[in-house]
């Protein structure tokens, strides 16, 4: 596509045209004033010469009329000059300069755009001056000014048209941008939905796998696990599974809608979370140091949300440690809230990742795995419960540490 010509030549043309038109108008005005002054001078010259004599005398002084006419005709402004005497006897105008004009050219009065000036003697008109003024300069100025006006209008038209075109183009680009933005949002939502689906599937697998492992253990060692414990475990996992099924969809997944808040014991919640990820933790040791003697304040929250928070943190830690190392969870009661410290022995969180660790789809594992939604979901649930989660500094090098603060339920 050929690039549109630059705008500045048109702007310059507009400015120059405006200046030229103003100058030409000034010049024209000056010429008109000079013309009027000259005509007045010519009229006065004849009146002072007295060559047309008084109105009651039909005679004239031809020689003086011609002499004055010659001096007037010397001016370039005069293209043709005719002097007439108004005869009292005939009541008509008679051309006395050139004296033969009336006899030779009967239609001379219509032959030019005459400027007619009265020649007065006292209060009476004795004759008239017919002057064909050479207005070629004025006409040239008019034509030039007209040309500049056309140029001005044309340039303004071009500029306005171009501006309108640009406005239209801008509108079109904006519209396209809006469309693309909507498309991006839609794609982002699709991607998010995909990631969430993967995460849901990942989470749904956990209770099912637990039940399968427990069933396999029970089949292999029927006496190793008391039947009551086994059935309770299967029941809990089944309940967790059903709860997850109810929560299908990202909105329900991160919000506690439809699930009743309960007074939760954090020690029990962490145990349930560790149990949930038991078969994915490899050889990692998961240590729950939260006091289970009832001394720790309870938290009013949907229990499965809390389980989800700690199971996600545990899974992340196990994956970071490649199934080797220790996970430690401890809690302390503070003024109106409970602070939970979650730490592992893994490689830790890179410095450049710390600021966006809780953003959705933020992951350190790249294409190899991880949806980047684990910490995001944790932060969303904690925030929904009125608490906070942040990365904490570890006392020794390596490892990751999280500080979760949740409001304590009123006693």
């Amino acid at each position, binding site marked *: 596509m050929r690039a549109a010509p630059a705008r500045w030549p048109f702007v310059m043309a507009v400015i120059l045209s405006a200046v030229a038109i103003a100058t030409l108008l000034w010049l024209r005005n000056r010429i008109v004033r000079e013309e009027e002054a000259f005509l007045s001078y010519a009229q006065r010259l004849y009146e002072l010469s007295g060559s047309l004599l008084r109105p009651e005398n039909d*005679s004239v002084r*031809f*020689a003086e009329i011609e002499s004055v006419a010659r001096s007037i005709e010397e001016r370039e402004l005069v293209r043709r000059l005719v002097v007439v005497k108004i*005869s009292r006897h*005939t009541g008509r105008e008679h051309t*006395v300069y050139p004296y*033969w004009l009336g*006899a030779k050219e009967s239609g001379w009065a219509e032959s030019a755009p005459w400027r007619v000036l009265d020649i007065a003697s006292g209060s009476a008109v004795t004759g008239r001056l017919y002057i064909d003024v050479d207005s070629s300069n004025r006409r040239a100025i008019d034509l030039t000014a007209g040309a500049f006006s056309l140029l001005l209008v044309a340039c303004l038209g071009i500029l306005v048209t171009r501006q309108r075109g640009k406005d239209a183009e801008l509108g079109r680009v904006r519209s396209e941008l809006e469309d693309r933005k909507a498309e991006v949002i839609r794609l982002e939502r699709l991607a998010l939905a995909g990631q969430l689906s993967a995460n849901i599937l990942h989470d749904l697998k956990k209770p099912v796998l637990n039940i399968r492992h427990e069933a396999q253990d029970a089949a292999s060692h029927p006496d190793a696990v008391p039947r009551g414990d086994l059935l309770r475990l299967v029941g809990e996992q089944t309940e967790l599974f059903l709860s997850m099924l109810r929560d299908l969809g990202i909105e329900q997944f991160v919000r506690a809608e439809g699930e009743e808040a309960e007074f939760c014991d954090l020690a029990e919640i962490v145990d349930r979370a560790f149990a949930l990820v038991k078969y994915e933790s490899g050889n990692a040791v998961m240590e729950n140091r939260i006091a289970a003697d009832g001394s720790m304040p309870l938290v009013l929250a949907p229990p499965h949300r809390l389980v989800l928070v700690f199971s996600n943190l545990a899974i992340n830690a196990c994956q970071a440690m490649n199934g080797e190392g220790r996970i430690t969870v401890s809690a302390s009661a503070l003024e109106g809230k409970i602070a939970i410290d979650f730490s592992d022995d893994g490689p830790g969180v890179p410095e450049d990742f710390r600021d966006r660790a809780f953003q959705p789809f933020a992951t350190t594992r790249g294409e190899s795995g991880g949806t980047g939604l684990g910490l995001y979901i944790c932060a969303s649930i904690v925030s929904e419960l009125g608490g906070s989660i942040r990365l904490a500094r570890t006392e020794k090098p390596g490892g990751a540490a999280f500080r979760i603060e949740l409001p304590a339920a009123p006693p």
Partner: protein
Amino acid sequence: MSCERTRTSTGTVSAHPRLRGVLLLACASILAIAQFAAAQTPRGSILRIGYMATEDGSGPGESDLELFAESLWGDEAMARLLRAEGFRETGLIRAESERDLLLRLNAGELDVAFVPARMWAEQEAGYEAVLQVRRAGDSTRTRGQGVMRRGVVFAGPGSPWSDPDAAIRAEDVGGYLRTHRVAAVGSQSMAGYVAPMLKLSEEVRMPRPAENALWFRSDAEVVQAVVAGLADVGVCGEDAFEAARAELEGSVSLRLMYRSVPVPADPVVVHPRLSPRRSETGREVRRALRDWFQVNRPAGLTLENAQDPDFAEVRALLGRWRALASEAN
């Protein structure tokens, strides 16, 4: 003013009564002659040349006469003569009107003057015609010397006689002129006014045919006025009429109605003191004028020798003119 010196001889005078009486008579005669000579001599030491300003080239202009005056004093012999006559310089006297010129002539104020022919006849100071102005187109008298001019009465494009086929009947012309304008040049002009107007009066049998005359200052202006329609009929010198007809080349209809008898052209007159018949200075001035005009031809004019008898027709015409005027009154 120049005073001619008279020389008288002195000697021993006897006491004879008759001789004493003769001597007294002689002295008285000498004194009378001296007084007469003083009266006839132009006053002062300036050679005064009078003229009337003309705008149509019918006479010399001021600049022409200035050049002539310079040439007079540039000629050593001429200058000597003039000084001997008592002149020390030359003065140009421009008359503001015909009447002004006539008054100056009658007062003897001018030594040389360019005057209309009629004025030569009307002046009473004895001025003598010594030269005549010739313009291109002037005719020469068939018998002897003298430049003659004719006057014409002509019809303009607005008159009924502009058509070449229209008959010119005296009764029609007379009736027409009672209500229409006649353009004419100043009444001092013999060839331009008196002669043609006399002809017209005689033709239409009216002593005063042009009561509605419009006056103009030259023959050329008369023609221009008729062409412009300010007047329907014009009376002027023939040469101006013919020149206009030639200039307009038939594009404007100008028709000759009547042509006057020939009239002598305007003269140059000199004070009686400078009469060539009596004064060598007068003869030399005449010669100088004629020669200078012959060489320089101002406005195409030349001068030719003339004498008073050459203007006899002027007196005759004026006589008829005055008779007509008295008839009209």
